[in-house]
């Protein structure tokens, strides 16, 4: 489903964020991407929905070589990849409900269908009672769950999450991990960057998982590809 081959990523200014990274994630797998701060986890995830582009090597998503993708095709790739950003990127000028409607609005879904799907997604993360609130009024864990609801509302086949349990206490983190385990069970392919060992352990206890690790931009040898 996701395949990196000899990927190099150098940021303008010359910093080598990823060096010769190769791995793949099969359909329906739940893979954790480990690594210290600055190891290149976010960079790696951003290559999948083409927020960043590789300098060399190739990234294949759902059979498409995204490194060769035409600009007009990028939005359609992004609609099929649910993203949970490290900084969440919620919009605080509108309600919880409207935040979840955003991915549907940009694709022209009928408002009635959209509202139904948005409520279903909010229900899945347990935020339906808060649909009219402003995200600013939600707790950290609730905001994180809102970000998840927005990521899954388009029913993407791939989910990428950048430190979804960062800054959450154990209880909240466990809720979030249980959500990912549930998505995995229904066949969603997921790649989750984290340095939360407890979260990885909790997920592994529920569903089959795998971990890969980045160290200073390189995949740690020995991790099964």
């Amino acid at each position: 489903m996701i395949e990196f081959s000899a990927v190099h990523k150098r940021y303008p200014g010359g910093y080598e964020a990823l060096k010769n990274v190769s791995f793949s994630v099969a359909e329906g797998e739940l893979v954790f991407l480990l690594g210290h701060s600055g190891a290149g986890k976010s960079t790696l995830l951003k290559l999948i929905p083409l927020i960043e582009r590789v300098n060399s090597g190739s990234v294949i998503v759902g059979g498409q070589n995204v490194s060769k993708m035409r600009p007009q095709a990028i939005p359609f790739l992004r609609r099929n990849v649910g993203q949970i950003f490290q900084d969440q990127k919620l919009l605080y000028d509108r309600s919880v409900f409207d935040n979840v409607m955003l991915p549907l609005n940009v694709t022209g879904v009928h408002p009635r269908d959209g509202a139904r799907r948005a409520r279903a997604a909010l229900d899945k993360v347990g935020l339906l009672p808060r649909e009219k609130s402003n995200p600013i009024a939600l707790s950290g864990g609730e905001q994180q769950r809102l970000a998840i609801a927005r990521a899954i509302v388009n029913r993407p086949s791939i989910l990428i999450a950048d430190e979804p349990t960062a800054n959450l206490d154990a209880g909240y983190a466990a809720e979030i991990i249980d959500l990912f385990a549930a998505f995995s069970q229904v066949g969603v392919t997921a790649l989750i960057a984290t340095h939360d060992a407890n979260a990885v352990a909790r997920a592994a206890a529920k569903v089959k998982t795998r971990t890969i690790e980045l160290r200073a931009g390189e995949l740690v040898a020995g991790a099964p590809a």
Partner: protein
Amino acid sequence: MKAWLRLHGMAFGATLGRLAHTPFATLLNVLVIGIALALPAGAYALLMNLQQAARGVSGDPELSVFMALDAKKDEVAAIGPRLKAEALVARVEFKPREAALEDLKKNPAMGDVLVALNQNPLPDAYVVRLKSNDGDALEKLAAGIRGWPKVESVQIDSAWVRRVAAAIDLGRMAVLVLAGLLSFALLAVTFNTIRLQILTQREEIEVSKLLGATDSTIRRPFYYYGALLGLLGGGAAGLIVYAALQFMNRGVAEFSRLYASDFRLEFLPAGDLGAILAFAAILGWMGAWLSVTRHLREFEPR
């Protein structure tokens, strides 16, 4: 296809919402555009009225053809049919010198002077009514007749009408220049308004792009906004011009009564008004396009 229509509908709805969300700023923008467009539109309306008035006063143009004093009777008589044969000529009226003298004698101020003369100083004349108001054709015809035998002089009675027409042409040029200049004002207003909107919606735009919004989905509401702003501004211009003409008509009514005329300033015809609205909407769209193209480029992700 349905999704596409819906995207348009949603963009339009969002645009209306945005306009209504900031009523004061919207009103100010509409007024600025309205005033900028009202100047050339108003000048154009006045010119049209002036042209109408000039046409009403002049009636059909006339030529007076004066014969030489030494022209013989048959030489004078030969001119009549020649005049009638001209394509532009509608009617020819011969005014013999004796009749002209009689007319003059009726004027009490002139009577004494004429009695003192022992000779008729007036020439035979033809008064020629013409079919056309075309100044150049008139001028050419007059020049031709001047060359005929024993014709002393030819006078175009409507020369001042031509002067008015020339002035109107000049005025029309001025209106065009004014419209061109003030179009830039409209362009600048929409450009800047949309620049501000893009800045305040920066987050929404960036997140939308991350979530898979196409470029056109992001641009569309701004285009609608620009076009709608232009349209509303054009409407405001129409209202301003209408109000100004109504106001001026009070003065005109007074003036017309003195001349026993029912002349009053007319509003722009529907076609011209429609053209102004369409022009304003297109300019607004263009301002939006320029602004969006200029400012969305800087956004991440691409």
